[in-house]
């Protein structure tokens, strides 16, 4: 059953295609900041939190924690400042949704910041933006400047007597700083090392003060929830985790990109929305929520893209980074690519992650180079299992999940590669120096040969 989602009303991405979309003038011409102004003058902070709770908005950063409930953890009577930190350190491989908002619709985010800061009575907000997002940083910085000049931020936000300062902070290129406690460490000026929870940031976070960390997309949803009411929001997709959702489709599709779709879209429909699997090939597998999510084989992809359905299938919606792989994809290579990333990005704090990520990469690298041993497959599965749930943050799990799922679901490919050894030599570019690597499976070689024949 196919549903045409191209007609779905875009809310979050409504403005992004307009050339002037990042200016205050254009944003206000689209009704921008009216909602925030209304909230600040008419509502009490607790009412705002209650309404967000009623909308069932779940965090868009990866864990999907209910946003209103997170806000309600902030102690109300405490003589410390409360901070709102915007997590714009979008670095999960395959994810590029926050970037669009940061670069093309920064005021939508600022309006969300105002609403959230008001709800938790925070007067200082930090936007921790990924270091590589150079354009996003400058666009966002300019938007904040515009907002200050227009009295939207500062001493008297929107004339409502609420004070709010927003400061940008650029990351220095560490994936781990997208993990909320790692982000806070980095923001404090330390090495970006995740901290042990509890205490959770809402109780003791930035500078040991109550801190709410929200994702860019989560905050961007706020304006629309208040503009159209929580019931509108709740009506989109499954009630337990509803709303419009930005999903990033990349990999082997005709038109990769960020799509605004209702939560609960069928994964195959989403792939169709992105133009389908490219070059008329067949689908092999999809990673549904960034590389940390467990992979889905083609026959498992008829699934609703929402928090609970994906969790039930043993994977997760995560950051919404949908990575599509066609039938020619070499899963050993794919896994190697993923593991290289996690090895590179492990902060090195906890032993299982520090040592395990490197170990996994080396084993898969060896298999890939044609020097695999039959026992390596079980070793990979065993190491993955022993890394899970033993560390401060979930980076170890994030490395172990793809490894465990890819090896389990595509075991035969690993066995083939180990058996074939160095049968087929070839050179590939692996994000750096040209390296000689080992064989590809006979099946893939055949497909490649067929393709070459067609070309000539």
């Amino acid at each position, binding site marked *: 059953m196919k549903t045409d989602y191209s007609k779905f009303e875009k809310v979050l991405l409504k403005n992004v295609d307009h050339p002037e979309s990042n200016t205050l003038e254009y944003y206000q011409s689209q009704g921008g900041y009216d909602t925030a102004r209304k909230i600040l003058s008419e509502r009490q902070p607790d009412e705002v939190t209650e309404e967000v709770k009623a909308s069932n908005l779940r965090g868009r950063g990866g864990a999907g924690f209910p946003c209103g409930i997170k806000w309600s953890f902030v102690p109300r009577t405490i003589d410390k400042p409360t901070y709102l930190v915007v997590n714009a350190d979008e670095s999960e491989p395959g994810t590029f949704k926050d970037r669009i908002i940061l670069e093309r619709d920064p005021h939508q985010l600022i309006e969300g910041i105002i609403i959230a800061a008001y709800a938790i009575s925070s007067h200082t907000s930090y936007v921790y933006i990924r270091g590589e997002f150079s354009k996003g940083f400058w666009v966002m910085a300019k938007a904040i400047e515009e907002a200050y000049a227009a009295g939207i931020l500062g001493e008297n936000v929107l004339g409502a007597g609420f004070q709010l300062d927003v400061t940008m902070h650029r990351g220095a290129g560490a994936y781990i700083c997208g993990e909320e406690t790692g982000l806070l460490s980095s923001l404090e000026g330390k090495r970006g090392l995740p901290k042990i929870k509890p205490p959770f940031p809402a109780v003791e976070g930035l500078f040991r003060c109550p801190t709410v960390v929200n994702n860019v997309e989560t905050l961007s949803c706020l304006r629309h929830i208040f503009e159209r009411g929580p019931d509108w929001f709740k009506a989109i997709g499954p009630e337990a985790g509803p709303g419009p959702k930005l999903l990033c489709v990349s990999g082997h599709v005709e038109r990769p990109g960020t799509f605004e779709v209702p939560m609960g879209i069928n994964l195959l429909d989403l792939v169709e929305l992105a133009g389908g699997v490219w070059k008329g090939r067949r689908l092999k597998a999809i990673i549904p929520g960034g590389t940390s999510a467990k992979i889905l084989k083609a026959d498992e992809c008829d699934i609703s893209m929402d928090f609970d359905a994906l969790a039930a299938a043993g994977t997760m919606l995560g950051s919404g980074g949908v990575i599509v792989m066609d039938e020619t994809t070499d899963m050993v290579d794919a896994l190697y690519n993923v593991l290289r990333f996690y090895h590179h*990005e492990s902060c090195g704090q906890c032993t299982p992650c*520090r040592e395990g*990520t490197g170990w996994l990469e080396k084993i898969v690298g060896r298999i890939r180079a044609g020097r695999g041993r039959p026992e390596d497959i079980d070793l990979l599965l065993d190491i993955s299992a022993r890394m899970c749930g033993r560390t401060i943050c979930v980076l170890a799990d994030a490395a172990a999940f793809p490894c465990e799922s890819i090896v389990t679901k595509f075991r035969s490919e690993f066995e083939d590669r180990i058996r074939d050894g160095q049968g087929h030599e070839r050179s590939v570019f692996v994000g750096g120096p040209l390296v000689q690597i080992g064989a590809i499976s006979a099946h893939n070689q055949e497909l490649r040969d067929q393709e070459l024949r067609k070309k000539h």
Partner: protein
Amino acid sequence: MVRFKLNGEEVEAPKGSLLIRIAHDRGIDVPFFCYHPGLTPEGNCRMCLVEASNSRKPVPACTTPVAEGIEVQTHSEAAKSARADVLEFMLVNHPLDCPICDKSGECMLQDHAYDHGKDRSRMVEQKELKHTKDLGNDVHLWGNRCIVCTRCVRFCDEVAGTGELTVVERGDHSVIDVFPGYPLQNPLSGNVVDICPVGALIDKDFLYEARVWYEKKTDTVCNSCARGCNIEVQTLHNKVKRLVPRHNPDVNGYWMCDHGRYDYKHILGPNRWLRYRLGDSSAPGEAADYVQRGLAAVIEENGPQAIGGVISGFATLETVYLFRRLFESRGVAAENLAARARPDGEEEVFPGFRISADKNPNRTGVQRILGHDAFEREAGLLEKIRSGTVRGLVLFSDLPGCPLEDRWIEVLEKLDFAVVVLLEGDDRLPESTGIIPATAFSEKEGSIINEDDRLQLLNKATELPRGILPEYEILQEALRLGGYRRAQMSAAGIFQELGTVIPELGEKSRRDVGAAGIPLKEPVVPAGGGS
């Protein structure tokens, strides 16, 4: 108070206390690397993972506070396997160069691998290489051995407050380093070697010096300042190899300073004086007789007020006591007994430690036995010698690195009888002056009182060089020869007489004092002492 179950047993503990402490207090072996009772727990090594009923994942005992009603299993299969796995990961990039590693034998990684690990490795890949470099004055880093527990980083941040160390790089390239141009140079730097659970940080002073299992270890007290840090002297073949701190929450916590740590070179250094010069004789056995006869001759000629004595802030209570008896028994006035001290240094205060300005380990003890002004009587005694009133003198010159002042050298020739108890050679001493070699601190058996009025025991870590007698034996023998004592006693025997001059001691014996010492008055909480 919180009630919970630990390995099936009902336990009550104060709210907020950490699982690992409660387990250790109850003698349950929860292994750890990064946890150190004197530092903020960080929970990064994951070696102390235990099962708790309020968490679906194993929790690190070092950072988990107890909660009401939970059930904790430290030795369930899941907990044990979690810890064995952590050890396997620890060894993935560890070089296993134990045969040439100085930590070998006292390495937590070795011990834990033996107790909790697996007996073979599944790791066949190339290991990561990390830098090996000099970190500063005393410490060298072997990065490959590092398990990134960050104890040393936290020590420099929290106790020394100097923050020289940090972790650089990420993932399995993580390794300890210093900032360019800022070496590890604080006066507490040696402690990072002690707390390193592996052989990553090695003391250059101890490098390749000894295999630790051959060493003899003796509990004693540091003699470098009036703090009296509790230490362990490690010796091999009667040579001091290194000094390491011994935990005493009331004095030094877990630490000691580098001044004390490296202050042992004089013990058998090139300057150490080890000969008797007793007029025509050089036989150790005649020392007591030499002293007894010398003093008696002066008294016979000029009366008892013509002899005087100078003890030092390094002498043990036992020696000071016998010294007092030696003169008291002959009716010498207290003003003829003075004491020499090492000049004050600078007080150094760190967030978690304090080094005293007073560089004399037993100043308080001397003051208690000879009177509070003992160290101020020096000028008066010198004047008496210059004026010819005092004609016989016993002078202690056993302050390491602090030879006799010229004012003493000048007056020695004026005396009819002078004997110097000498630690380090001094060729300015006149020919006529008798010399008795002094004992160095590792050779001493006795007790001292620190600046906080805490009495602590010195134990003999090295044997005196052949033929050398400790001061207290010579003083006792001199007393015996004069008819004032009946028999020779050991240091422990003399200790029991100390009650006569230090009333708080009463009938206490050395055994009653124990390894941690006893406060003679209400203990003053030291600035950066316990933990």
